[in-house]
């Protein structure tokens, strides 16, 4: 039971980071049907900038919370600027180009950003300074740390904030109108260019915070971290139905939970020694409490993708998605 609760807590933590990054993918996709492959790198840069600021301030007498906040405050505008530049320099000139052209541009930008980060921050993984006293609380036999609590609460707050912005403000209406139909939105007086730029900027800002959260949760930042995180977050966005904001949140949390629970239980479930029928031909290997584990926790990523594939096979446009794009 405590393992279950523990894995749920861990899953919720990574899941909420996935969800926040997935929002960046899904918002951009919603308005211009583009997979912004470079979004993961924006998240990485966010973590890197925050790392630099936090490390620089770590020696000072400022209270730890202020230092972390300063890191976030530096990362967010830096990433927003980068999101803006990405859209302006790389994607805007290609808005009327064939469908796969921006995808290649995104790949190119992703390579460029990754290697620029490599130049600035070096090849080795950077350890986030542990300045906040990470207290661990016990609930029902499981442990939850203050960093985990902070990540979950902050993610929820950001999701709530974004929902309010998209569904309750004038600019939010413009975003949703553009997502519905760019041309008609234009006729109604929506400045599509501004809306598109805004989705990139907002997504990048959220991504920056997610990068800091991810970095402080695992205690490490690396110039390649954006790739895997981006991949998971993109999967989460598709799982929920890409282009759908609530879907991205649901998909992210779900993916985090599936991953954590799968990793926690697969070893036990596929240990053939616990299967009565396999005992016959595994006799010696199972003797003295031996194990014959088919799939261990190193299959972590398989769960994420398998869930994704299964969900898409039965719901081809994701859990909450409605629109089906017509062609590849």
């Amino acid at each position, binding site marked *: 039971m405590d393992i279950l609760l523990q894995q749920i807590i861990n899953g919720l933590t990574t899941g909420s980071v996935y969800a926040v990054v997935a929002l960046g993918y899904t918002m951009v996709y919603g308005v211009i049907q583009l997979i912004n492959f470079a979004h993961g790198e924006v998240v990485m840069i966010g973590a890197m900038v925050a790392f630099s600021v936090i490390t620089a301030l770590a020696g000072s007498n400022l209270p730890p919370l202020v230092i972390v906040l300063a890191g976030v405050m530096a990362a967010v505008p830096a990433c927003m600027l980068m999101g803006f530049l990405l859209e302006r320099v790389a994607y805007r000139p290609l808005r009327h180009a064939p469908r796969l052209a921006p995808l290649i541009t995104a790949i190119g930008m992703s390579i*460029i950003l990754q290697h620029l980060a490599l130049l600035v921050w070096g090849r080795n993984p950077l350890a986030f300074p542990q300045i906040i006293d990470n207290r661990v609380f016990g609930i029902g036999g499981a442990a939850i740390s203050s960093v985990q609590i902070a990540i979950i609460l902050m993610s929820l707050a950001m999701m709530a904030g974004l929902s309010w912005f998209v569904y309750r403000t004038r600019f939010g209406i413009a975003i949703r109108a553009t997502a519905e139909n760019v041309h008609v939105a234009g006729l109604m007086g929506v400045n599509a260019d501004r809306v598109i730029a805004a989705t990139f900027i907002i997504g990048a800002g959220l991504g920056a915070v997610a990068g800091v959260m991810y970095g402080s949760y695992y205690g490490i930042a690396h110039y390649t971290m954006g790739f895997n995180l981006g991949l998971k977050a993109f999967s989460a966005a598709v799982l929920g139905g890409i282009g759908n904001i609530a879907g991205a949140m649901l998909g992210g949390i779900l993916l985090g939970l599936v991953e954590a629970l799968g990793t926690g239980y697969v070893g036990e479930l596929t240990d053939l020694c616990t299967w009565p029928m396999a005992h016959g031909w595994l006799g010696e290997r199972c003797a003295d409490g031996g194990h014959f584990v088919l799939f261990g926790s*190193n299959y972590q990523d398989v769960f994420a993708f398998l869930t994704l594939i299964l969900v898409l096979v039965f719901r081809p446009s994701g859990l909450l998605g409605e629109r089906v794009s*017509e062609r590849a």
Partner: protein
Amino acid sequence: MKTTRSGVSEKANACESRRYAVAKSHRERVGLVLVAVALMAFVLASAGTAWVRITNFAVLFVLLSLGLNIVVGFAGLLDLGYIAFYAVGAYVYALLASPHFGLHLPFWIILPIGAAVACLAGIVLGAPTLRLRGDYLAIVTLGFGEIVRIFMNNLSSPVNLTNGPKGINRIDPFQIGPLKFSASDTFGSLIFSGPIKYYYFLLLVLLAVIVINRRLQDSRIGRAWVAIREDEIAAKAGGINTRNIKLLAFAMGASFGGIAGGMFAAIQGFVSPESFILNESIMVLAMVVLGGMGNIWGVIAGAALLSFVPELLRYTVEPAQRALFGKLLVDPEVLRMLVFGLALVLTMRFRPAGLWPETRHRRELNEGRV
């Protein structure tokens, strides 16, 4: 009346003879290109065996791109996990011709087996994803590719199938009778080193694949693919069995990937999951898109370009820096990747349909965009 008629027939005659001349000059040109390509091995060899090796890998990537072009270019199905089939082919070869299981089958048996297994994998991937479109298909294929790689990485326990991340080495090279592809042979004054022999073998395969692709493109199947790409519902209404035709695209693309994978294993002599990461899938897709989807020659050009440019940069970036600044300012490896990324971005900026696009494809792709 009479004059016009004779005029018409004269015109037709002239037209006929001109067409004949064009066909003749076309055939001559193809012949010249073939001779040039065949001799290229020795030119490259004089620049160092390394360049022959690089060329061999470039040809492998051309083969991969042509395979992916069937799926993405012809049938319009966005596949981001294509490298999985390459991996399947490579591992089939590695398992059947290495000390790992103690099996040493000859390559002309393994290559078809590898193609068949990869083909099966293509159907396994294609069957459940028939209803998916566009980006949803992209992410599922991506997931499939990652799953294949993770399995190869981890199937070393409880039973050691793939030897895990360490990979399988000491893979048998090709051998035809007494002719070993690993050793050098001399015929008169000509030295045929191992890579040169592989080069000629690869050229033969490449030629066959190009011919197959050309014939496919203009066949009933090829037209069915294009019809599905343009409008699946209309294609179905037009009497095309979209399910089978889409599966066929996956299966064919996968088989080509499997064959290329088998040759990769033999040439390299070593396979490990690291060669089949997502980045490789993305790179092959970039080759197809950059060259011009759907156009065989464009795809070949794209693959050759993206294979050679990074290598050329490898040899020029460092001396250029020394010449300009007198010292190394930026790590050449990093600079190489930066230039490469920039090249991708700039090419798409100025030739969004690829360097050498297929005309019909360009028109079709321009629709349905914001």
